[in-house]
Every structure is written in C-alpha cells, then in structure tokens.
C-alpha cells in the first residue's frame, strides 16, 4: 500500500471539513476521488501534502507516517501536488517554475535530467521556457503545473481538478496525459468534479459527501451505480 489515510478528521475553526475519512491508494493505481463542490476533496489533498493538519487520524505513505510532517519533507518523500486552478507562478518563467518543482532535488545534474524528461513529454513547454508562465494559455498552464509536480520525480501524484476551466478537447488531452503518466509508473490520486472522465481512467474510486466517504469501489462499478449516475454523472 502506497498511501493510507486512517480516520482523518479536519476542522477549519468550528467547521468540520473532513470526518473520519479513510482511504487507500495502491502502488500503480489511479484512484479517483469524486464529489460535489465543498465536499472536502481539496482538503483531503491538502491534508496529505501537509498544508492542513488533521485533528485526528493518521496518514501513512510508503511505510512512513507523515501525519504531522511539514510540506517540504512530504514532497521530498515523493508526493507531488498539482493544485486546483493550476497555480503556476505567473511572474516567473516556465523554466523557473519547473526549477521550483525540483526544489527538493539535490544537485544540478539531477534537476537538468528531470527538466529534460518534462520537456520531452511537453515539448510546448520547452518552446516557451523563457516565457512568463502568466502568459501561457490555460491548457499550457495545466501542462506546466503537471510538469512542475513531476520535477521532483514523485511516487505519488495528487491532482486537484486538472480539467477545471479547460475546453473539452484539452480535457481529453490532459486525461490522456494522466493515463500515460500512470502507465509509466506514477501512482495517481485524482480529484475531479468531472466524475465521468475521472472514473473512465481510474481503477478505483471514492465518493466524498460533506467530509465523509459514502461509497467506494472499482471505478467501473461506481460509474454504473445508480446513485452515482444520478448525483455526479448527470444520468
């Protein structure tokens, strides 16, 4: 088991954002976490990355407990994060953005190697490497956000709404990239409002409702579940 959340509860002040949440991600899987706006999907990812401290519960990654570690240590253990809304550093160049993704990487050679791999996958980023990230199109920014997270060579990639705000054609492209990354060995925990797309590439899925997991199972089963179809697939 690569990632395990056990009974995680998170509070923002008096508001309970996650309540006794447990989930697991096996090595090599794509796991989809679907749910409505405000269900706690992003909070779950922030908690794994250490931006938010849980009040209760444990998080175990690759055999180590990471529950109270600072975010920078969690990144160096091998968790990459593609934040919601892309969040590229708009006033920095594409290349500088990628360098920030490799912040925990020791040594220039390893970083150049990581950058070469990212440029191979996203040639458009190489063409624009000296351009400010804020001037990229939405799709390019999403690629940059993914490339930036890949710079630390993560074992597990957390992706928060990678399809948000993109045209349907680009959404398909991004999902193809996610699938390809997974086939090449990156485990992915995918948060999506686009449940249909997410379940189509995931192996397993969890449905999150107001801070609790209400359904889980193989992605194909969830996609066929009448409850899920009514609530999230618009069927």
């Amino acid at each position, binding site marked *: 088991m690569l990632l395990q959340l056990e009974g995680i509860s998170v509070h923002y002040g008096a508001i309970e954002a996650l309540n006794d949440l447990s989930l697991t991600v096996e090595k090599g899987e794509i796991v989809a976490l679907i749910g409505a706006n405000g269900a706690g999907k992003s909070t779950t990812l922030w908690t794994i*990355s*250490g*931006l938010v401290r849980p009040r209760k519960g444990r998080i175990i990654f690759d055999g180590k407990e990471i529950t109270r570690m*600072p*975010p*920078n240590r969690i*990144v*160096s253990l091998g968790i990459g*994060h593609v*934040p919601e809304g892309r*969040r590229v*550093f*708009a*006033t*920095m160049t594409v290349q*500088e953005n990628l*360098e*920030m*993704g490799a*912040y*925990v990487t020791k040594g220039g050679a390893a970083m150049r190697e990581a950058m070469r791999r990212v440029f191979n996958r996203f040639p458009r980023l190489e063409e624009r490497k000296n351009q400010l990230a804020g001037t990229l199109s939405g799709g390019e920014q999403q690629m940059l956000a993914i490339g*930036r997270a890949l710079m*630390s060579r993560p074992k597990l990639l957390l992706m928060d709404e990678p399809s948000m705000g993109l045209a349907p054609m680009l959404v398909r492209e991004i999902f193809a990239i996610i699938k390809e990354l997974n086939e090449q060995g990156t485990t992915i925990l995918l948060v999506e409002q686009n449940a249909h797309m997410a379940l189509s590439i995931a192996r397993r899925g969890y449905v999150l409702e107001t801070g609790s997991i209400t359904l889980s199972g193989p992605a194909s089963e969830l996609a066929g579940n009448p409850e899920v179809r009514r609530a999230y697939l618009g069927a």
Partner: protein
Amino acid sequence: MDLQTLLQQMINGITLGSTYALIALGYTMVYGIIKLINFAHGDVYMIGAFVGLAMVVMGANIWLAIFVAMIACLCVAVTIERVAYRPLRGSIRLAPLISSIGVSIFLQTLMTLMKGPQPVGFPKVITNTIYTVGLVKISTVQIVILVVAAVLMIGLQLIIKRTKMGKAMRATSEDLHTASLMGINVNAVISFTFALGAVLAAAGGVLVGMYFNSVFPLMGVMAGLKAFCAAVVGGIGSVPGAVLGGLFLGVAEVLGVAMGLGSYRDAIAFGLLILVLLFRPSGLLGQPEQRKV
C-alpha cells in the same frame, strides 16, 4: 533655482534617497512574502547604526564597521521573526503587525536605556574630500554611500533573479501555499527575507550615521516611516518600486528644502505619499492587489 543648484540638489537627493531605498527594500520584501508591515524594521536600522558606531570607536574602518553591523542586524532580525512573528503565523493579519510595534518600542527603549537618549557623533572614519565634477560638488562620504547602496542593490537583484533561494522568495511571495507544495521550506525563505532586509538596513544605518554625524535610539522612527512611505510610493511588494520610491522621496525632500520648505522637510515625504496614493493606489510600480478566492 539655477541649473547648478538643481544638479547639486539632485546629487544630495539621490544620496539621501539611496539610504531610504536601502531601508525601504526590507519593508517591501517582507510585505511581499508575508503581507506584514514590519514596524520594527526602522529600529533594526538604528541598531545597525549603533553597531557600526561601536566598531568605528574600537578602531575599525568603515567597511569592517558596515560588515559587522550587517551580521549583527541579520541575527537581530532573524531572532525577531522567530520570537515575535512566527508564533503568530496563521492568526489574523493584525496580530503580527501589533507585535512588530511592540518589538519596535522594545528596541527603542532598550537602546535608550543602554546608550541614553542623546545623539552621539560619528568619529571621522574617512577623510571627507570634496570633489568638483563639472557643475556639482560631491564628497567622499556621498560617493561611499552611493557606491555601497548601488553594490548592495545590484547584489540583491542578482540574489533574487539568479539564486535558488531568490527564486524561492519570488515563488513564495507570489503564492505561499503553492510554494510549500513544491517542497520550498517557507519558514526558511521567510527567515532569509528578514535577513536580507536587515543586512540592507544595517548598511543604511551606518552610512546615515556617518553622513549626518549622528546616531540615537529614536533615529529609526522617522527614517523608518519615510522608508515605509518610499516602499508604498514605489508599490509595496515591488523591489524596483522600493528603490524608485526611495530615490524619488530623497530627491523631493532635498529639492523641497532647497526651495525654502525646510521647515516642512518631514512633511514632504508624507505629502507625496498621499498624493501618489490618490492617483495610483497601488504605488508607482505596484500591482493592484488581487483577491484570492
């Protein structure tokens, strides 16, 4: 005012303005990263002046005095951040602001107790020759100030643009949460930012102490306020803005005095602040603040 006077006052104004800029950079960098107006920053500058003075009294030359003052202020500023601001991270924005006012009062009182309230003169550390270049006169002290300020600002620019830590500073100031998701140790970046600001302010303190031949515990109050104005006029959060704002205020102040507004000397900076903010609320080079959702 004839051309000669104008040029002469420009030189004097740029000299004064570059010391404002050295202090203003600390305000603007810290604000850029943690959105805190660090009111204790002017007092770090004052401590720099006292440390530099102590070194000169012990027989050090001006370069060594500046260097030791920089190291001392670096330690002071990093300690202040650690003790007075870091524990308040994540609380409302007003809390560290109030804490910084407390630190400011503490440092002023401490130095007044230790050194007395009276201004202390600065021993002659460099022979002050006055050179005539074309129409204007420029003194050795002014040259030292201009050179030190220029070297430090270029150095700062190189650090911010080229080094890993400098890039991390820019990333953190743009988006602190995302920066930490990248594995950037945000606390280290914040400490580093305070250290950089303090180093610049320390140099400013020693230079001003030498220029005006006067060092006293409350010297950081007015200088700090004016430098803060300079940072806001230039656009708080903007590094080039702080330099521009500092020079602008220095020149305006000196020209104002030369035009007979000497008794309004200190009012000029604040008047300009109001004027600039009326027309450009985010300062000369500042970006309008975007509300994050």
